[in-house]
């Protein structure tokens, strides 16, 4: 089992400034999964009832000189502490910039999988090692990782990953992630359960309802991807709640209930600076899916080398 690659400058920027801070909010521990072509950060895919999150990078987006080999179709996965990984990348960057000026050859940041004997231990442990070679010195940082997943565990992870790829039939684009976040942050003082209704008309309706209070927000005329229908003219003067109920009854909308905390967490992905975000409900109301898109810098074209999405567990099948 071997893995060795050089992080590109762009890759370091993506991870250090954008993705690792966002992934860290999603959960302390994630699986890092390398294949021949991709590096994938996975949260909660094998275990747990939390938000499932998948951040996938084509190898060229992060690395050059990427070498991987294993007896399991060149696939390697292990669990890693995101905040430690972030710290290692961050300090490698500061070493590069500190010692890098002046040297003719560009500093390169190499990461590789190693097995080492840690101090005060008799058993070798696996690490993801960051090696920064300066002009005259080298700095090595070892980030502890779990034992690489066994063939069976890896198969399980791959299956879970394949299952997490199904797209909702209707996706609506959220106009302003920051605004939605500050709204949800305030809303979560009022209750724990959030009803989310998404219609083919392009309406996103969020509502917390307890015995004491009903608090909701409706965003209308959003951009729709997938199944869409023109909104009925007679619905225009109704309240948000009746509009949603009617749309669900007509089969033009789906509604699910999720944890407000999960919803607020999904909005933390604004730290990864996505260019747009879409919400949709998976078939049969299986989960609430959030898909983030990234554009190729300076264009409105989707950057297909990066993909990020998460799935919020549904607490109640809701009304379909």
């Amino acid at each position: 089992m071997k893995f060795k690659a050089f992080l590109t400058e762009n890759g370091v920027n993506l991870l250090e400034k954008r993705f690792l801070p966002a992934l860290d909010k999603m959960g302390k521990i994630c699986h890092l999964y390398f294949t021949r072509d991709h590096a994938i950060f996975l949260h909660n895919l094998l275990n747990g009832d939390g938000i499932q999150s998948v951040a996938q990078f084509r190898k060229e987006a992060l690395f050059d000189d990427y070498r991987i080999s294993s007896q399991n179709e060149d696939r390697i996965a292990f669990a890693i502490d995101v905040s430690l990984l972030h710290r290692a990348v961050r300090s490698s960057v500061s070493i590069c910039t500190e010692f890098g000026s002046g040297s003719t050859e560009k500093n390169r940041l190499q990461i590789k999988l190693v097995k080492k004997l840690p101090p005060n231990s008799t058993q070798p442990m696996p690490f993801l090692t960051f090696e920064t070679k300066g002009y005259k010195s080298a700095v090595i940082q070892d980030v502890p990782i779990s034992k690489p997943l066994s063939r069976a565990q890896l198969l399980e992870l791959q299956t879970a990953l394949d299952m997490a790829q199904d797209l909702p039939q209707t996706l609506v684009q959220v106009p302003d992630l920051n605004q939605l976040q500050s709204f949800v942050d305030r809303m979560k003082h009022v209750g724990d359960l959030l009803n989310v209704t998404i219609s083919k008309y392009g309406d996103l309706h969020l509502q917390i309802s307890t015995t004491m209070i009903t608090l909701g927000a409706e965003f209308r005329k959003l951009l729709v991807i997938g199944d869409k229908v023109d909104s009925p003219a007679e619905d225009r003067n109704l309240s948000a709640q009746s509009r949603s109920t009617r749309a669900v009854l007509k089969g033009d909308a789906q509604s699910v209930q999720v944890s407000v905390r999960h919803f607020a967490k999904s909005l933390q992905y604004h730290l990864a600076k996505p260019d747009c975000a879409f919400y949709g409900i998976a078939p049969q109301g299986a989960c609430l899916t959030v898909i983030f898109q990234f554009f190729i810098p300076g264009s409105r074209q989707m950057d297909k080398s990066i993909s990020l999405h998460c799935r919020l567990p549904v607490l109640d099948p809701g009304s379909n």
Partner: protein
Amino acid sequence: MNRTAAAAAALESEAPDLVCQLDNVQGMVDALTAVRWKRHQDAVIELSEHGIVLIVEETACLQAKVYLQRELFVRYEYSAQGRPRFGVSLGLFVDCLNTFSVPGHSSTIEIQYPGPDMQLLLKSVDSLDAGIYAEIRTRIPDTISWDYNFEPAGSAPLTFTVKSAALKEAIDDLEWPGSSIQVTLQPVPPTVTFRGDGHGDLQIDFMYYANADLLMAFHCDHQVSHRYKYKFLKATTSNIPGSVIKDNRGSKLTIGRGGMLKVQHLVSVARSSIPHPHIDSAGYQHPSRIAYIEFFVKPEEDEDTEND
């Protein structure tokens, strides 16, 4: 949901008691937060043609009122007979209002009472394609357990006005001795004294001539002294809004008959407190756009020095 729609239609024939609009939600949040001294508090709201009054009280020893006069509202349509009163959870009401005041988003809200199920209804009114709404369940209010009729102690008022920030600081400092705090006003030399005896003792004096910038006004013709429970005094300043300190406002304290202490704060509900792109004459504050907050604190009963 259908029930709501049907009831809404039924209600159209009859105007609600109150429909009003406010363009500065944050100001209202600030004012109501000032009387939120613990997590779960029941409040009574009273509506009238003059505005909205919110009342909270605790164990018949402390009462607070927030006066939101009709001048604070951009629209105020009152059509009730008498003065409707209802109970709400203060915490829920404030948290809910706070949701409407998202930064970077102008926040005009409409408040209506009652809804089809006697709820308090709130909704944002400034955007067609993004709207926030809320329905808060109301209760039949408890009767106010004791009468806070505040009467002057004598012919001349016993009162002083102190910078709100200094008052808060003094009361915060008195936390250390804790328990009960003696408040003394004496005419010569004109002085206000806060004294705490508990774990050690601490005395804070505001001298009218020495601290004219802190003690802005002082009226007292005879020495008067009463003790108040620290936790009630603390409640009067614990959540004083940042805008009050920033605007460098004063708080007025008056001792009334039987030693009842009245503490008054002024909270700005002017729109200019939130930077807003449509305001060209920045800084201008309409004098009427102030919410008045009053606390009434009963003295400790074992203190029978004054019997007027």
